[in-house]
């Protein structure tokens, strides 16, 4: 292969313009022994590329790797087994704490309510006092009205008395005016 061509290919290679076929040519050229001195610095790179492409994974290595993986998997699962347990415990303790708070709240509220009921029986609350006072007042007011009814009758009596008094006055006056002696000596009139 012409050295000039190789130089041209190299130039295009560094611009990323060579095709795979051209790159293969370059690799072949540099794996040969007739590389001119000024191109020698490029040789290791192309040789390295060619060499690396032959690297394979042997069955033996795969076997080893598989065993390592199985070992690793065992370790992981043993870790995994304890790990979610811890996590679950964490969540469970949270739930338990929540329930505890809820239950204690219910107890406190119930206790409070019971105590209040008890208190109401011992010393009547304002409401109870109010209703009792109201009832008493109603009773008083009803009694008051019946009293007034009774008093009404006294009034008629009063009126009657006043009439009687007026009649009496008139009678006295008449007797004084017509026959004063009769008043002093009623027996003489007969």
């Amino acid at each position, binding site marked *: 292969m012409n050295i000039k061509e190789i130089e041209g290919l190299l130039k295009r*290679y*560094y*611009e*990323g*313009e060579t095709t*795979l076929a051209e*790159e*293969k040519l370059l690799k072949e050229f540099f794996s040969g022994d007739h590389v001119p001195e000024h191109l020698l*610095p*490029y*040789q*290791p*790179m192309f*040789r*390295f*590329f060619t*060499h*690396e*492409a032959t*690297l*394979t*994974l042997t069955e033996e*290595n*795969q076997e*080893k*790797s*598989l065993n*390592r*993986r199985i070992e*690793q998997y065992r370790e992981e699962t043993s870790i995994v087994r304890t790990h979610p347990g811890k996590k679950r415990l964490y969540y469970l303790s949270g739930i338990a704490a929540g329930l505890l708070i809820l239950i204690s709240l219910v107890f406190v509220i119930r206790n409070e309510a019971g105590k209040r009921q008890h208190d109401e029986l011992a010393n009547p609350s304002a409401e109870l006092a109010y209703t009792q006072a109201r009832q008493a007042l109603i009773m008083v007011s009803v009694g008051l009205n019946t009293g007034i009814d009774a008093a009404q009758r006294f009034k008629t009596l009063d009126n009657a008395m006043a009439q009687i008094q007026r009649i009496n006055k008139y009678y006295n006056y008449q007797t004084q005016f017509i026959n004063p002696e009769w008043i002093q000596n009623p027996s003489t009139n007969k």
Partner: protein
Amino acid sequence: MNLQDFNTKVYPLKDKIFRFAKRMLEQTEEAEDLVQEVFIRMWKNREKLDEYRSLEALAMVTTKNLCLDKLKARRFPVESFNDQRQFIETIAEETRPDHSDLVLGVKEAMGTLPEHSRMIVHLRDIEGCEFDEIAEVLGMQENAVRVALSRARKRIREILINDKSYEYQRN
């Protein structure tokens, strides 16, 4: 998709997945494990696999996502065994005879690239993927892939040639 289909269509992707994972994670064992992970994911999803246009693209996208997840997790470094293993592995690789210093330099240079650029260079220069395939795997526009690829290649050249040209000048 049954087991037989899975074996003929998905399983052969193992090397490609492995290379991609190794490029990103820079660690052989982790890359091997990641291949299994990708297969497990695809197997769990086997009922829907026939709906995908390209199983290869799906596998590569899955690999990419898993790698990025792993790399992200690494940013919160866990004091590890992994680091030691990686260190030992690096030493082992560096002393391997078929790796010359120069080739190792390329690996290092690629390692310094940002994740996205590294993926592009890997898929193009090592796996030989077309631009539209890379675009699909990375969720980019083809043109953006081309531009990023050019930039990443130049960056590698900068690292390699600048380092080595010093040596060349000295010699």
